[in-house]
């Protein structure tokens, strides 16, 4: 697949003014709610420290905790599978379903299954898959990927949803009312949940000590997906393991406060064993995680608990929209994760950042996100995943700026050329700076020349040219 041009996609998102403004204001509100929530917890920074250290410890002893989890889960009556990559994961899911002649599946939101493109895999094999998270269902009906890992359809306005439901369900498109729209969705989705042969969820955490998986949700759809059908499948990324319930408490306190400013969600559900007369399968999925764990600079992104605080605070994400990244994970955390999946396709993402550092400072598990973004840029250069024109500009800049004499010549000619060029020559599509901004006017005299004229003799300095 070709390289994602995030900058170009973002420009299109901005051009359509409604959505950019809507998303910026919605997410900034969540950022301020996060601040308020953190303010009400005096030990907030200690919690972040603790969470970071728990993750670091668990990731450093991952094999131990994974094996503990597997044995406890098995003892609870759960069937545990291991999947090395997305394809193997999807095969396992399909095998479980087809062996039991289950042709319909309801699932709650899971970024891991997005990562594995599980829905498409199953649909291509004749299985009806229904997303039950409202936002994810909206995106499914609109044939779009999630644009945000917590609110998959947050880039859409209520009117967008009303239009979509009118098209798909024949509801009233003039009623752009969230309550009405939620009822429309409920009426159409509930029967699918009741009839489904199997249910699937992801996991926010997997507790090694108990062998339980934990989901943190608001709509109750994960509980319905997990409990309504007798057959239940849960996909878990390897990095979701934490040692004990005591550790879980630290993350529960941080997760929703960081995500939306809520102290806790409506449902924090622990699933430990199959329901009566039912079956429960847990698939532990690697899909690149163990090789990322071996990357000296980039392993810390495995600490991520998917709260999306980095996305909400990111000034670039808020103005670009999540779809612009063309990836499963987007925004700051996406920038540092996605190149581990496909370095060529996501080679431009590390440049979609001003390196302002806000993401790092809201991250509840203290991932040094903006430093990793910077480090990825160097990797892209090393691996030659670099636009040629940018590379050439950098070579010229590097040459000029390392030779004082060349630099002075360039300074003189820039002053002259910018002064004599007519406006149309300055502002054209070759000049990215000038598309939305005026170019600064070069001074009549550089500081260097001023100093030479007024100060160098007094300072007794040699003039270098």
């Amino acid at each position: 697949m070709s390289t994602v041009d995030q900058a170009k996609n973002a420009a299109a998102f901005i051009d359509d003014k409604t959505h950019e403004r809507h998303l910026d204001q919605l997410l900034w509100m969540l950022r301020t709610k996060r601040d308020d929530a953190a303010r009400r917890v005096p030990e907030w920074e200690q919690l972040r420290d603790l969470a970071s250290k728990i993750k670091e410890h668990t990731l450093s002893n991952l094999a131990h905790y994974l094996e503990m989890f597997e044995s406890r889960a098995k003892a609870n009556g759960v069937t545990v599978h291991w999947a090395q990559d997305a394809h193997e994961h999807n095969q396992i899911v399909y095998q479980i379903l087809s062996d039991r002649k289950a042709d319909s599946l309801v699932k709650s939101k899971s970024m891991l299954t997005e990562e594995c493109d599980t829905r498409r895999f199953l649909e291509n094999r004749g299985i009806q898959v229904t997303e039950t998270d409202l936002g994810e269902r909206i995106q499914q009906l609109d044939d779009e990927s999630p644009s945000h890992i917590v609110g998959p359809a947050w880039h859409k306005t209520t009117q967008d949803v009303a239009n979509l439901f009118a098209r798909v369900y024949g509801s009233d498109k003039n009623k752009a009312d969230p309550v009405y729209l939620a009822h429309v969705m409920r009426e159409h989705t509930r029967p699918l949940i009741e009839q489904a042969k199997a249910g699937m969820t992801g996991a926010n955490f997997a507790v090694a000590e108990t062998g339980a998986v934990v989901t943190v949700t608001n709509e109750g759809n994960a509980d319905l997906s997990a409990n309504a059908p007798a057959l239940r499948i849960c996909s878990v990324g390897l990095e979701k393991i934490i040692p004990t319930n005591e550790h879980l408490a630290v993350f529960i306190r941080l997760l929703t406060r960081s995500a939306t400013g809520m102290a806790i969600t409506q449902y924090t559900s622990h699933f430990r064993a199959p329901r009566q007369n039912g079956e429960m399968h847990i698939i532990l999925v690697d899909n690149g995680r163990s090789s990322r764990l071996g990357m000296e600079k980039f392993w810390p992104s495995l600490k991520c608990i998917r709260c999306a605080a980095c996305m909400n605070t990111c000034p670039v994400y808020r103005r670009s929209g999540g779809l612009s990244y063309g990836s499963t994970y987007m925004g700051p955390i996406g920038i540092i994760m996605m190149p581990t999946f496909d370095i060529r396709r996501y080679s431009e993402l590390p440049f979609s950042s001003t390196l302002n550092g806000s993401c790092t400072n809201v991250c509840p598990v203290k991932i040094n996100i903006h430093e990793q973004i910077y480090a990825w840029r160097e990797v892209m250069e090393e691996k030659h995943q670099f636009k040629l024109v940018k590379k050439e500009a950098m070579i010229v800049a590097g040459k000029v700026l390392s030779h004082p004499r060349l630099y002075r010549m360039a300074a003189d000619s820039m002053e002259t050329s910018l002064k004599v060029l007519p406006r149309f020559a300055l502002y054209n599509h070759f000049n990215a700076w000038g598309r939305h901004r005026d170019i600064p006017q070069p001074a009549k005299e550089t500081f260097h020349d001023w100093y030479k004229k007024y100060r160098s003799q007094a300072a007794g300095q040699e003039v270098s040219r």
Partner: protein
Amino acid sequence: MQVALMIPCYVDLFYPEVGVATLELLEKLKVDVVYPFDQTCCAQPMANGGCYEEARATEELFIKNFSAFDHIVTPSGSCTLHLRNKFTAAPDSPERRKVSASVYDLVEFLHDVLRVREFPWAKFQHKVALHTSCSAIRGLGLASMSERVHDAKFSKPKNLLEQVPGIDFVDFERPDECCGFGGTFSATEEAVAAKMGYDKLEFIGKSGADYLVSSDMSCLMHLQGCAHRLGAPLKVLHIAQVLNGVAQ
């Protein structure tokens, strides 16, 4: 005290008056200022773009020009951050480490090293919106950041400006959100950069500020370009110009 003055490339070319104000201000404070003549740039543009190979020679030149000095001062938070924390394109050497250990942003040099608490020659009777760069806030710690809600609130640039009689500080929304400059980002992702700049200007515009003052001219260069394009010319000043008392 002897200080080597580092003038960022964009200040040299576009805002020499900021360089002059920095020099004059340091001289007023009885500092012996040396301007190494063969200086060009800190190499941040290339390094920030991921191009270490291209940054190396420029960093080596910087080391050659500046490693003899115990204090290097520059009116730029972003150049300071590069020189202090990201100055790794040139091979490691005692000289390179000395440069990183000796560099100061003008604000922190005045505030923490010279501990200047008065500017008797300056006055500035205007409504001022103070913009502090992300490099200065989250990189150098020159001001508290909104993300760290339990930290004590402080701002070193504001502490300095408060010593200038007449300034009426105005508040604006999202004061420490990035302005959108971001170095090479401002060209590679120009649409988002400009939108961030426009939004910043909208917030500042609502505050009723007469002047936008910052210790980073690169943010101001970007914001000024946005303001001109929007037909809402904005008066911008570097903090050195206000503290030096030339702008009144």
